[in-house]
């Protein structure tokens, strides 16, 4: 590891030991024992001045709710479907809010991000990359064992999409990880059209070779009908990079119904969620809720901090087919 700090427009990349939160901010996080990067150091938490730093743990994540430990209060169960309740909880925290999504499932953090944006809460999203992934000894497409099985395709809370729009004319963007079986499953389930499918692979990856793992893991489906020719690229740890690629593909489709499957990196999933929030009913998220395998990753890599609020105030966040009132130039 190097003592590197990288800042791009809305992203700060640092080592996790250098992570600091400004005085008065809130830090909302989950924890898991199934990954080394999944536990926030208790020493780090204790070292912070409790008068100036509020740390709130999401102690339990369920299919429809999460359990949150509010300071000086009993545990509170919050419904993932109750937008008002989520907003109340977030508004009760001090600003800015640092939301660590490393150990949070998509179905937990996505409605939190959505509520924070709707309430104009100043939001920074934190994510720790793994140092490396555990390899599989099995068949080709099960190269990396990240998931034991999937929980089935169903909408993320707050992102259900019912209306039978002109789906057949729309495009499909699967954002790929290592698990080819997940891509194949979703592709078959939604009966996507090869010609209107534009996969995204993380390039550069968390590590340079990871991009090749993604190609290798997904080669069964990418090899069919020459789908590999339509692959697009976005930096694996950058949600804003993937946001721009999604916007580009959406434009190619003349802004018809766009289906996005965020089955790659978590930063890419964040970018997908931001895109869905921004574009509303024209974007449908397709997610398969995998059951994560224990010890699927090893160690801690870079820590990334994403300035979501500033990004939502840029022109990019406003759909090009709507009036552009009140944006800031990026």
């Amino acid at each position, binding site marked *: 590891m190097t003592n590197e700090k990288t800042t791009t427009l809305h992203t700060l990349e640092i080592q996790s030991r250098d992570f600091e939160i400004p005085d008065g901010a809130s830090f909302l996080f989950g924890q898991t024992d199934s990954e080394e990067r999944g536990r926030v150091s208790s020493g780090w938490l204790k070292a912070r001045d409790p008068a100036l730093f509020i740390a709130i743990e999401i102690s339990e994540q369920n299919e429809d709710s999460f359990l949150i430990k509010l300071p000086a209060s009993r545990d509170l169960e919050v419904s993932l479907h109750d937008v008002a309740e989520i907003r109340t909880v977030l508004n009760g925290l001090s600003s800015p809010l640092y939301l660590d999504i490393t150990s949070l499932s998509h179905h937990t953090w996505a409605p939190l991000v959505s509520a924070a944006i709707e309430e104009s809460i100043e939001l920074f999203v934190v994510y720790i990359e793994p140092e490396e992934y555990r390899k599989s000894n099995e068949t080709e497409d099960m190269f990396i064992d990240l998931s034991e099985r999937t929980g089935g395709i*169903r909408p993320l809370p707050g992102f259900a999409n*019912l209306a039978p729009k002109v789906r057949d004319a729309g495009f499909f963007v699967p954002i790929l990880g290592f698990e080819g079986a997940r891509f194949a499953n979703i592709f078959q389930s939604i009966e996507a059209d090869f010609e209107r499918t534009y996969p995204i692979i993380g390039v550069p990856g968390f590590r340079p070779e990871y991009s090749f793992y993604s190609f290798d893991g997904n080669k069964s489906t990418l090899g069919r009908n020459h789908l590999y020719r339509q692959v697009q690229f976005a930096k694996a740890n950058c949600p804003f990079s993937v946001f721009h690629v999604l916007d580009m593909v959406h434009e190619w489709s003349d802004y018809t119904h766009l289906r996005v499957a965020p089955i790659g990196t978590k930063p890419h999933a964040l970018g997908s969620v931001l895109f869905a929030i921004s574009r509303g009913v024209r974007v449908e998220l397709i997610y398969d809720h995998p059951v994560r395998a224990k010890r699927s990753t090893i160690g801690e890599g870079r820590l990334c901090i994403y300035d979501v609020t500033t990004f939502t105030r840029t022109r990019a966040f406003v759909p090009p087919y709507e009036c552009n009132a009140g944006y800031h130039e990026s």
Partner: protein
Amino acid sequence: MKFMTTKNELDDLQKQLSMTLGQVRSEYMLDSEVFSMFSRPTYWSKIIGPRPCLLVGGRGTGKTTALKGLSYKGQLTLNGPDIESWAAIASYWRIESNVVSAFKGRKLDNDNWINIFSHYVNLRLTQGILEFAIWKFQLDIDKQKPVTIDLKLVCASLNIDDVTDLTALKDLLALEIAKLEARLNGNTRTLLQMSLSALGKPIEYLLIALQADTDLNDKVFAFCLDEYENLEPYQQTVINTLLKHSGDSPYTFKIGMRDSTNRERSTLAAGQPLNDPADYSTVNIVEDLKGRGFAEFAREVCNKRLKSVSGLHNDIIDVLDLLPALSEESEALLLGAEQVRAKLRTRLTEERITQIEMDAFDRLPILEACLVSYWSETKQNAPIEVLRQAIREPKTWRTRTGNYSYSLLFTLRGSVRGPRKYYCGWQTYAQIADGNIRYVLRLLYEALLKHTDDGNTLHAPISAKHQTAAAEQIGENSLRELQGASLIGGQITRLTLGLGRIYGVMAAQPYGHTPEVNQFKVDTIPGGDSTAAAELLNEATSHGSLVAFASDKHAGGSGQTKEYDYQLHPIFSAYFAYSHRRKRRMILREDDIVGLASADSRRSIERILKRSNRTPAATELPEQLSIYSEFFNNDK
């Protein structure tokens, strides 16, 4: 210049082949493309008419094409605007997981979800009717025959504002769905406060109102629902209720599903489940096609597609000519039968064969000669003794050759490089596809790609080598697709790999055993993991890895438990090099099934083969399976 021209011609041809044969999924083809290549399936007469029908078939069996063909857009394209010539007046609705799975969870009980989902079904099915009705009423206007329609009851039943025309109703329905979507994305309290409609009433009222158009009097509207298996059990109950009562209503259902074994039969009325055949008929596509000439139907489909390849409009290309078969004798020669005979001749010489006996041996047809070696291994008799028996009893020997010649073919290649068995001929392709039209098209497409890559034209027959390579490739592709086909795709892939390897070894080591074993029955043992095994078998069957058929043909009907035998789908036969014909079965245990699907599959393979005194190590992996060598040979 000539090279470039040739290369461009090849590219053009292969691109055309890709467009006509490679794009085989009607789910995403433009409707005009689907209907331009539509061929009426053999079971068509069973699915039209007012009787509700379940259309059962896996991916690629033609369900979607048939249901889309029945829909109003399909009938309009196929038969023109005169609805009297239509097979049905229908709408098509593909049930998507990402939509219907929004109607669950949140700690709401089933009763709440039933009411909410029923309302959604009302909205959705009413939209389907409206799509047709708006077209029809516009046609009436164009013909100077405008019809006035009373929509009061429809609007009242949906709790929406009264409207007087169909387009306004369509807009309001879209708004209602948007409201429902907003509430599903909002908090549960507001969702429960939503005004809902009674299941089926809006549909009924609208269909009755449409009968103001005399052309629609006595017409039954069909709802074609595709991918019924994507519904939750309680959602299937809702649809079942509508189906149960469709006999009293001006509508019917044509429902497409992957398999009929794992579905809900109950309705919302306790004690009144769906009954077959009282409430509906069932068409099992594969069984129907196979029973009534799948090969002929598939031939028609393929020839139609081939005809549309540019440059062939005046030529007749028939798949029978493109895909010639090999006789067993010819195949034996390709597989190295002459080398087997030569080796046997040397052995017979060492056993002091007489000249008369040697002359008799030399006169034997190639298969009868190779059977001497095969039978010698089987009976553990010296080849000379077996030959003497063949000479003494020529008629018996010829009969025995007929019984064993096919399984003999799998043994001829030995450890020499090359295909272990050839899979060619139109009938073989049709059998490998086993009623799945998508497989037929893929096989043909792949064979043509390999054929044209070698510089051949469509006027030349495809070689046995290319046909076999194509069959192996499609088998491999189908195996890879399994991973994504199910929530437990990885396990199903391992199960398929395990069974395929077992059958391949059994085919290569047939001596002293029943030939052509490629099916199994599962024995239940006390203490066995029947739930896990059942889930695996159900999923594997549902997603096309296995073919299930009733052990007892007379068991059936609602509520009766059927027992099943299973066959590894013939599409894998070329890839794993075993017989594609439905022949003989073996007995497996529940823990065998679970073991084969586990990460320790290799040990289960060895254990199962050991029961019949076989070992996988004695049979090299076929070349096409070498990418899985780590899976089959890895020591954990």
